[in-house]
């Protein structure tokens, strides 16, 4: 068996607060295979977003290892880190907060192409148009400012920006949580299409077990910085074993539709 795309082992991050030390992430291990979606679920403060920030090297861990694409990710620095980061991208919950609102769409998509030396200045407009088309948007959108377009369009732009550098792994941190449900379905479909066609793996961080059961292959449920349980997403959601897993399932609103005859 080949090594996984991402292997996280014994990852730990502690914070000091008021003289106390709190482990936000407490010895966590997991792995992700190519083209696989692993969901990280759990309540607020369980460590989900800290893991995302550790993976992106926005913060450094106190202990543990991260192996990405067969190499020690935590030892990378400078140009080598920058180059590897092109393969590991991120999409946040609120694209308006993630981008300069006055920047144009072309600027937002052109930046990673420039920074990572992917396309020359001359080539860029064509690449930007191709990226827009790839995420189901019109190339005409390139000249618009980020604050002028809809929330669903902005999240498509965020995804286009993430895939601009041809990543093997995209971290999606509550990436569909703020979207209207009618838009959410389209964005999930786009993510699945990209995964199938470009073999991108996702670390899908969410508190919503409904969305997770629709998109994820496997799930890890976090509680207070540790993995309470993990496994096949369907199996875990159908029969959670941990206290926090049971609490999450119980707390998810159930929509019971009795007279829908076409249960197929």
């Amino acid at each position, binding site marked *: 068996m080949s090594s996984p795309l991402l292997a996280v082992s014994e990852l730990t991050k502690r914070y000091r607060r008021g003289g106390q030390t709190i482990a936000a992430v407490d010895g966590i291990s997991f792995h992700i295979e190519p083209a696989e979606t692993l969901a990280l679920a759990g*309540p607020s403060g369980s460590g989900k977003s800290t893991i995302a920030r550790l993976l992106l090297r926005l913060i450094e861990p106190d202990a543990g290892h991260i192996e990405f694409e067969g190499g020690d990710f935590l030892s990378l620095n400078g140009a080598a880190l920058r180059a590897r980061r092109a393969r590991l991208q991120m999409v946040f919950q609120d694209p308006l907060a993630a981008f300069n609102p006055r920047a144009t769409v072309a600027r937002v998509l052109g930046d990673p192409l420039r920074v990572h030396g992917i396309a020359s200045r001359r080539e860029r407009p064509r690449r930007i148009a191709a990226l827009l088309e790839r995420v189901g948007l019109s190339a005409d959108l390139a000249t618009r400012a980020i604050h002028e377009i809809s929330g669903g369009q902005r999240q498509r732009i965020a995804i286009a920006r993430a895939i601009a550098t041809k990543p093997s792994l995209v971290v999606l941190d509550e990436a569909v949580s703020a979207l209207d449900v*009618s838009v959410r379905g389209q964005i999930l479909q786009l993510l699945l299409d990209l995964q199938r066609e470009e073999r991108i793996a996702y670390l899908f961080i969410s508190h919503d077990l409904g969305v997770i*059961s629709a998109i994820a292959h496997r799930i890890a449920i976090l509680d207070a910085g540790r993995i309470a349980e993990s496994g096949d997403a*369907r199996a875990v959601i159908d029969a959670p074993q941990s206290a926090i897993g049971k609490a999450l399932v119980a707390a*998810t*609103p*159930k*929509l019971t*539709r009795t007279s829908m005859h076409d249960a197929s």
Partner: protein
Amino acid sequence: MTVLLSVRDLTVTYRRDGSEVAALKHISIDVAAGERVAIIGESGSGKSTLALAIAGLLPQSSRIEGRIDWPGRNHAPIGGRDIGFVFQDPSASLDPVMAVGKQIAEVAHTHLGLGWSAAYAKAKTLLERVRLPDPDVALRAYPHQLSGGQKQRVAIAAAIAAGPKLLIADEATSALDTIVQAEIAALIRQLVAEDGMTLLFVSHDIALAAELAERIAVFRHGDLVEIGTTAQVVNTPRNAYTRALLDAHLGLDAGPMPWRTGTPA
């Protein structure tokens, strides 16, 4: 059935950048005393505008046509006394530099005419009712010392402090995680039942709304597209948009989506 609130042909227009946008168009809806009604819709549906209009909280610049009547009352309801309002973001609705006990006591002092010590005693009782751990400590706490869920409990305590007939919760659980959301929804349900309040529950989440409400009103682009009992709206929706909303809901039994690839090789 006693009608608490009667909205007739309500149109609300916002003026923005020189142009006018109709946020609500010719809305008519009756709410019975003691009933729980969910107002659902996506962004731009007008659901929050309706809540603000009923509470008399629309900005001065908005234009309001139509009527909002309160049969059985001889004066317009007073916000905070007759109507309690819980917003999505408790950090924005609570004063960051005032102890939470005082914020709740102030409502009782202002609207019930209680002296300060009686108002504080009332605040403590309310903190117990919204199940904040250690109400004596909580009285003196400031909002930043509380979690998001605890802050929302304080906001609910302040909203019901004057014993309002109508409680409006506008996306009151949307910023909270699943477990805290369920706790706050259960708390709202219990308080509404205990105090015989009428509930307007504004939400984008049709599943959560169906768990709480007896009737559901579905809004889209400022129109009321459908209203009915929860069972009728959920099981036999008449409107295509309502059906689309129901179909877009992803419950625990949702997945995997048809287009999801199988287990990766």
